[in-house]
């Protein structure tokens, strides 16, 4: 039987899983083609045919929100995977090797850390030119530093732990040390940071799209959809509220999941 403390986690995992499934199978779930315009039916309020109404070109908002999940969630998760793995790897190498490798990589990360993250991303995305890929690249350029810092600090601490000496005295080889002692001990904090970061990354990607530096029209992306509907907030609020609510719900679910994961992975609780 499942321990009670795991139950909320299961709930959040199911919710996050459902979101990811919707994102993957989005093309099959949309009630209408999210790209087809119908100017006569533009800005129809939510009704039985269009559950979330239509936008200024008469496109079904629900279909665009569903389709937008694919762009937003998949791009965010992919981006997160890239910066988590690359950042942690760089950090672990710095922590284990030390010396010149450590100095060069860490000073490089210091340079990136000197910029406010979003400002740097806007500048980089602007310089690279718009588009979702460039927006993600801009965020990746600065995002890895955090994971490099975290995993380096963790590896440095773990290296000095008495249990590393004890493992050596137990006859464990270096691969065993890495698998049994180093990786499990840095995985918890890194995974939790990543889970808590999903929300931030979704918002940053949506933010860049909102500023016109991310997804290009007619690609349905939540941030871009909000930007397009911004001027109609008072007259046709559903155009903005639907993608806004989608961002809110998704970010909330992934944040709750990250929080719960942190509680569960902390064996001291």
């Amino acid at each position, binding site marked *: 039987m499942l321990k009670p403390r795991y139950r909320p986690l299961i709930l959040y995992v199911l919710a996050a899983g459902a979101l990811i499934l919707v994102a993957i199978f989005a093309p099959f779930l949309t009630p209408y083609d999210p790209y087809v315009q119908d100017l006569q039916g533009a800005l129809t309020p939510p009704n039985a045919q269009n559950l979330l109404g239509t936008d200024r070109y008469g496109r079904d908002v629900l279909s665009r929100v569903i389709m937008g999940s694919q762009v937003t969630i998949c791009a965010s998760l992919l981006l997160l995977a890239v910066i988590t793995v690359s950042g942690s790897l760089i950090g672990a190498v710095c922590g284990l090797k030390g010396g010149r490798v450590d100095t060069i990589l860490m000073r490089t990360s210091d340079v990136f850390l000197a910029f406010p993250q979003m400002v740097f991303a806007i500048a980089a995305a602007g310089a690279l030119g718009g588009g979702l890929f460039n927006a993600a690249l801009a965020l990746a350029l600065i995002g890895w530093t955090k994971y490099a810092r975290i995993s380096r600090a963790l590896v440095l601490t773990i290296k000095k732990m008495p249990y590393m000496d*004890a493992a050596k*005295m137990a*006859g464990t080889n270096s691969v065993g040390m890495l698998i049994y002692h180093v990786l499990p001990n840095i995985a*918890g904090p890194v995974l939790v940071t990543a889970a808590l970061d999903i929300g931030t990354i979704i918002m940053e990607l949506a933010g860049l799209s909102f500023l016109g530096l991310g997804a290009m029209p007619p690609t349905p992306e939540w941030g871009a959809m909000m930007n397009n509907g911004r001027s109609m907030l008072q007259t046709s609020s559903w155009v903005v509220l639907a993608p806004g609510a989608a961002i809110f719900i998704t970010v909330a679910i992934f944040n709750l999941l990250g929080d719960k994961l942190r509680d569960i992975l902390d*064996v001291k609780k």
Partner: protein
Amino acid sequence: MMNENILTVKNLRVLYGENEIIRDINFSLQRGEIFIIVGKSGGGKSTILKSVAGLLGGGAKIEGQIFFDGRDITNLRADERRKLAGAEIAMIFQNAGASFCPIRTIGAQIFESVAAHKDWTREEFLRRARAIAKNINLDENVLYEYPFKLSGGMAQRAGILAAMILEPKLILADEPTSALDAVTQFSVVKELMNLRKKYGVSIVMVTHNLNVAKYMADEIYTLH
């Protein structure tokens, strides 16, 4: 054969760069002997143990010779050292709680040292671990616990169990009682004495507690 020396240290000198940590260390101990090293803090007591255990960091330079069971182990290759570690020479740490990885159970970690040397099944391991646990008055359920759940005395006994699981010939104990209260100290000392009686193991122990040293030692080595 019983009078043969298990450990002989000759003219041991350890340097970190230009910094000399210890020099002219000479001693030997026989099988089943308890050898205690005393001396002031920072005098290099632990360095002697670490030299024997092969735990000195990369920056350290060892001169002189260390013979274990008739074999020179002063500068062993990593793979040769791994064969000795745990199986023939084991170590009990000052803070036994911290010598276990915090996110895995005690049993899983002790099994790790078994898996590195023997092909015992899990059942075989548990049978032997329970037998040793019983001998050192340790509740066998400790095997299923995480390190942070153990009291100081339990953790130290778990450390002794981890060191004894492969029945090594030599145990190095680095101030195993210094973090404990007087009552627990006494019981740990008793368990260490029992180890020799039951398993015939030799012990090199570092301490700054002269009472413990006097009570346990066959021979006391004072580090100046």
